[in-house]
Each structure stands twice: as C-alpha cells, then as structure tokens.
C-alpha cells in the first residue's frame, strides 16, 4: 500500500500497465523527459525508453491521429492532451475515426486508445485550462468517457481504460491531482468500467455527480446529515455508457435526485441523467429533479472561478428544494 494523490495514482497505473504489456505506449507533449506538465508520466521515459514514452511534436491533431494508427496496428497508446481546452483540434479524429473504426470495418480493425486529459477549474490556471468538456465526448458513439474522483478510482479506472479494447476519453480533474491522498495498493487491479460507484448510502435524496464536484457533493451530504437529511452519493465515474441501473435503483428508494456537475448547464451531461429519470423513474419521484451546474457562461479567469464552480451551499439549497412540502 502506498499513500498516493490522484496524479501519482495515474502515474502508477500507466507504469504498471507499461511494465506488464509491451504494447502500451505513452505519447504527448512533454510527457517524456519532463514527465508531463502535471508530472503524470514522470519517470516513465527513464524506465521504458523514448520509443515507448514519446515526446511528440506540438500538434494535438496528429497526437490523436497517429495514436489511432498505432492502435489499429495493435499498440495500446495512452495519449496525453496537455489540457482539455486544447483537445478540440483532435475532435475530428476522436469523432470521425477513434469511435468508428471498429464499426466501419466490422471489427476487422479497432482502436484501443486512451486519451488522457486534465479537465476542470479550481487551480487558478490561465485561459483555456479550466473547461469540463465531458458532455461533448459522451455524445459520441463508440467511445467511453471516464472521470475519476479519487486516487484509488483513478488507478483502477485508468488500468481498466488501457485494457479496454475500445477508445476511452479519460478526463482527470486537475483540482483533484494533489488535493488528497489515499491508500492505493498498486497491484494492477482494475476497477470495472460502465458502472457507477455508490460512495455514501442514504435514504432521503440521491446526489449524483462525478469528478472534482464529488468533493462539494460529499461535503454537502455531510452538512445535510447534520440536519438529519440522509443523502446517498453516487459517483458516475463512467459517463458513457451510463449505468442508469444504479442511479434508478437509488432514486426509486429516495424519491429525490440532485445532479451536480462542474460543466455548463445547457446540454450538460446532467440533462441526460435527468431525461433518463423522467423516462424510467418519474413515478418514483417525490419532487422534480434538480441540477446544480456551472452557469451557462465562459469559464471565468481565476478570480471568479469559485463563483463559477457549484458550491456546497448551492447543492444543499437544491436538496432543500426537493424536500419542500415533504
């Protein structure tokens, strides 16, 4: 067991898999000698060599485009896009090729690719370094979208993502990189993809969130518990494909649901969960589903970012709204 923060867990998962599977390669900007701007790949090039830990030229389109070519030939590339705000030039390849190659060749070729990218606000970063683009990727067929919320889940989910035979967009909340440490066994044990994790049991309301917002969500659950309101907390973890079974099972018991995410509201992934609840769980609901999200604004520069990020108070207020008249 080692006490690891989230970025160290990401590093260990890559090291484990590179050590056990020679087809795994890491590529991206500054991932080699520098070990990544967040140090997620630190030590990997020293250990596995510059041919498997590739400092690429500075071009996101070609990082993902070439990684698709590698993946189709049986390598398992783990491509780092330095910040999710810079991922859009590669969208062409993710949408048009990574998620389609298996389908369009009837399984003859496939794309076992992991795209790792930091996401989210809260670290006083410059412009274009704080976005939460998960909903864009969750809309794409043929890909998976995974966001870890703790070091141990980051470790287990990243291993699962690398071992998965299909492309995975793995978004890492920068705010969590060094926020807290956890015991991580570093034993190569993967966690399951495509399932939600219930982090806290409760009977009055279901709080559904992912990534860094689980911090505020769990703090809200704690505050609510002080008031005698027992909130269940679900970490979605894999957004696409979405495990609605776990969420519906919980909401059927609690009758109330608040969805919390850091991304903007309109077209955000919370809408997808709310729509699923309307389709499949409406008659279990005792109150309208609430969404606590960022405002529909451009992520502000750092002085206002905590006004942009949903707060514990906003989550508590939304829960109170579901309890009105109860």
């Amino acid at each position, binding site marked *: 067991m080692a006490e690891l923060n989230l970025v160290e867990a990401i590093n260990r998962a890559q090291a484990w898999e590179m050590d056990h599977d020679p087809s795994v*390669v890491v590529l991206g900007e500054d991932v080699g000698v520098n070990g990544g701007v967040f140090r997620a790949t630190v030590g990997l090039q020293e250990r596995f060599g510059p*041919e*498997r830990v590739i400092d*690429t*030229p500075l*071009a996101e*389109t*070609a990082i*993902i*485009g*070439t*990684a*698709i*070519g*590698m*993946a*189709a*030939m*049986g*390598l398992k*590339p783990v491509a780092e896009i330095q910040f999710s705000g810079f991922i859009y*030039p590669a969208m*062409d*390849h993710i949408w*048009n*090729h990574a998620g389609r*190659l*298996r*389908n*369009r*060749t*009837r*399984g*003859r*070729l*496939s794309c076992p690719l992991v795209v790792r990218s930091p996401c989210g606000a809260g670290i006083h970063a410059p412009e274009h370094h704080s976005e939460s683009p998960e909903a864009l990727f969750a809309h794409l*067929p*043929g890909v998976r979208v995974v966001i870890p919320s703790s070091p141990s889940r980051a470790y287990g989910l990243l291993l699962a993502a690398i071992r*998965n*035979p*299909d492309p995975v967009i793995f978004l890492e909340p920068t705010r969590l990189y060094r926020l807290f440490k956890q015991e991580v066994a570093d034993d190569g044990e993967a966690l399951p993809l*495509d399932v939600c994790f219930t982090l806290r049991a409760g009977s009055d309301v279901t709080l559904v969130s992912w990534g860094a917002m689980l911090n505020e969500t769990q703090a809200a659950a704690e505050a609510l518990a002080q008031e005698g309101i027992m909130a269940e907390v679900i970490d979605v973890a894999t957004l696409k*494909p*979405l*495990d*609605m*079974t776990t969420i519906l099972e919980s909401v059927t018991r609690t009758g109330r649901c608040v969805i919390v995410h850091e991304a903007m509201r309109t077209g955000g992934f919370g809408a997808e969960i709310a729509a699923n609840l309307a389709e499949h769980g409406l008659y279990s609901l005792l109150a309208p589903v609430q969404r606590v999200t960022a405002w529909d604004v451009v992520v502000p520069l750092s002085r206002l970012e905590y006004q942009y990020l949903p707060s514990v108070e906003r989550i508590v207020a939304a829960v109170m709204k579901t309890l009105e008249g109860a």
Partner: protein
Amino acid sequence: MTTVARFEVEFTRFLNAEGEATQELPPFALDPANLIPLYRAMQLTRAFDTKAIALQRTGKIGTFASALGQEAIGIGVASAMRKEDVLVPSYRDHAAQFVRGVTMTESLLYWGGDERGSNFAVPREDFPSCVPIGNQVCHAAGVAYAFKLRKEARVAACFLGDGATSKGDFYEALNFAAVWRAPLLVVINNNQWAISVPREHQTITPTLAQKAIAAGVEGVQVDGNDVIAVHDAARRAIDKARAGGGPTLIEAISYRLGDHTTADDATRYRDPDVVQQQWANEPIRRLRNHLARIGAWDQEKEERLQKECADQVAAAVDAYLAIPPPTAAAMFDHLYAELPTAMKEQFDAAQWFASHDGGSSHG
C-alpha cells in the same frame, strides 16, 4: 548573408503522352511481363469505374468517386508494396485497393452503403477509405510508427488529393513521421481539382512536392499519368522507408477526367473543352502505345483484355447485388467489442421495430 539551406524538387517521367520513352527506362520496366499486369489493373479499374457510375445512375449504389484518368497513381504505388505493408487510402483509391486484394464486390458494397464493404477478406490490416480530408495521413504516420517500434520491416503508404495538402493533418503527419523517421510513403494524387477549386487556388507554390521540405522530408514529383514513373518513385521510396530511411512525399501529377463524384456536375465550374484536351495525357493509352511499340501488345490482346475486365466487373456486380442488406442489429454489432449493458434497451427496440411490419415507415 549566408544561405543556410537550399532545396530542389525533381520531376520524373519516363513515357510521354504518346507512350514514347523520354529517357532510359528503369530496369523493372524493361520486361513487358512487369508492365502488362499494371496495364491490366488500369483497364480493370476503368471498367469498374464505368460500371460503378452506371450503377449509381440506376440507383444500385450510392454516391461514387471515380478514379478516371488517375489509375496509374494507385496502381503504380500499390504494385510497389509488399502484402504485409499497410495501405491507408482516401476515398478515391480503389485502383490501389484492387491491387492490394480488396475485391470489386467489397468496393461496391461500401459505395452501396454497407459497412461490410470495408471488412476486406485479404488486406486484413489495410485501412478503410478515409472520407474526411487528410485525416488518413496522421493515421498512416501512426501505423508507420507501430512498425518501427516493433522493428517490423513494413511500410505504411497513404494517398491524399491536392486539396488535402491545405489541411493541417497533412503537415502535422509529415512532420511527425519525419521526426520519428517512420517508414511512411505519402502520395499526393494531384488531379488539379478539389471538387470545384482548381489547384492554383489551393496554394501558390509551384509544386506540392515541396510541401515536404518544411518537414525535412524528401519530396519528389512524378508524371502521375506515367505508371512507370509512379511505380519507380514509389518503389524507391518504399525501399528507403523499409531500410530505415524515413518518409517520402510523392506528388503525382494527373487530371481528374470525371466529376468529383457522381453527386457533382463539373460542367458548372470547368470548361469541357479543357477536360477533353486532358484526355491526350491519360495513362492507359500511354502505356498501351508503349507496349505496342515494343511489340508486347496488339489489338487481339486488347480485345481479350477488355472482355476479361468486363466479365470480371460483371461477376463482381452480380455478387454485390446478391448480397442481402444487413439487419438492424448490424448497427450495434461492432460499435464496441461488446455491446454495453446500457445499450441493450436501444438494441432491443431497434430489433423490434425493424422486425415488425410497419415498424420503420418514413416520410
């Protein structure tokens, strides 16, 4: 002031438009037995194109992109590849694909709107046709990197059009491949037109081959209507790549004698008289004249070949038309290695509506 770098771009042609040798032919071209298969492949592609356009006009396939006039490029390159090499084509590269072993039936199936057409029985690792412009150059650079990493003596070859040289993907991929010294051949089919936009509006550089220079890649230009020049340049580039010499860019100059696709009407933007004049340069007549001049071809052989090609195309069409459409489940079958549980409900619904009368009425 000191000149710190200087470049030149070489142009190669062995046969002029009349099929006369303008310089000593490369060794492989001295034996007609090496040239006749190339001639045959060009004729077969042209017969296929003619039939495919007719099939589109009669509603038997969807939109189709013909290779008319550019047959020498794909055939010259693919015939220089080994079977373990990997082709990463654009959407106008069936000439090369047929040489690689993709069947005409598979090609018709693809253009006829069926993904099974990209599940090639023979070149199992060749990429399917890339429709978004220029993306495939990046994929090919990645394929080449995989070969290099695993120390396999294999080469990736990809095609793009003159329009695609305006895309970032093209430059980024050339640069990556150069930095990696990856075994890659990039071939530009410069057919002078990107739908309606002529070559001179695409870039002001005198050649497209020189686009390689900025990446430190060797760029050469060949007469793309001279299959001997194309094959010779491709063979040298592939040998170099296989020996660890890194990527090469070949600009093959040709002319799009047909419409961009069957959905296009080129008379809207170019003078049919100019197109007519370009027929004088086309690659098939050129090689036939050469073969006839050296006594390796005659009218009887020509007629026999024409019939063979027509029969082969007809058989491919019959085979294509006999393939029943896929079922609705096919949309889900290869989306992921295993269909996620979350998609089971959609899968069942699609199956149910598809299998019930009146379940999929439209409009």
